[in-house]
């Protein structure tokens, strides 16, 4: 892991297109601004992990809703 120290209003540049800026530091919370192209997803880590878990559960449809072998092309 690359570790860098920044103050408020300082930034980090990742690659050619992603900029992470420390907007504000208040107590134990840091407000970050992220500039990135639309093609790059940006998530809070806990939300991303929750999405991964939810998608993995959702894909297990055969045991409950239906048997995919019984479906037809739309």
């Amino acid at each position, binding site marked *: 892991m690359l570790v860098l120290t920044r103050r408020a209003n300082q930034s980090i540049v990742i690659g050619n297109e992603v900029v992470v800026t420390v907007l504000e530091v208040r107590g134990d919370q840091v407000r970050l601004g992220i500039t990135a192209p639309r093609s790059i997803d940006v998530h809070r880590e*806990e939300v991303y992990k929750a999405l991964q878990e939810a998608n993995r559960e*959702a894909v297990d449809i055969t045991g409950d*809703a239906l048997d995919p072998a019984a479906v037809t092309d739309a």
Partner: protein
Amino acid sequence: MIDLALSTACAAVDADIVFPDGLPGFPDARRFRVRSWPRPDEPFALLVDVDQPDVAFAVVPAGMLDSAQVDVLEAAAAHPTLRDIADVVVRCIVTPGHAPTVNLLAPIVVDRATGIARQVTLDGPPDAIRTPLAFRS
């Protein structure tokens, strides 16, 4: 057809629905096809990974749900190729079970013009990922 709008998203370009970066939890799941739900009275469709048929998601139009609505404009703005709002198709992933839920935080957005899709994350509480499934009456 159960989900004509979603079906034409790939039929119009005579190709698969493509997720360039996969989906969270399935980074290698890129090419999908739409399949009909076996019970035509239910408003679901299946998105099936062409290369991994075991990877399949039941999806439903957000507009049919009896709950806080998905912001279609916000969802469309998060799509990388979408140029015309008329080309947007928005569907929500359903997790089946005894108490089925629907993911309203991260819908699937498809650009009908290109067949490019993405599961976008909207601004909302994380528990919207598992909203109880209920349809508008």
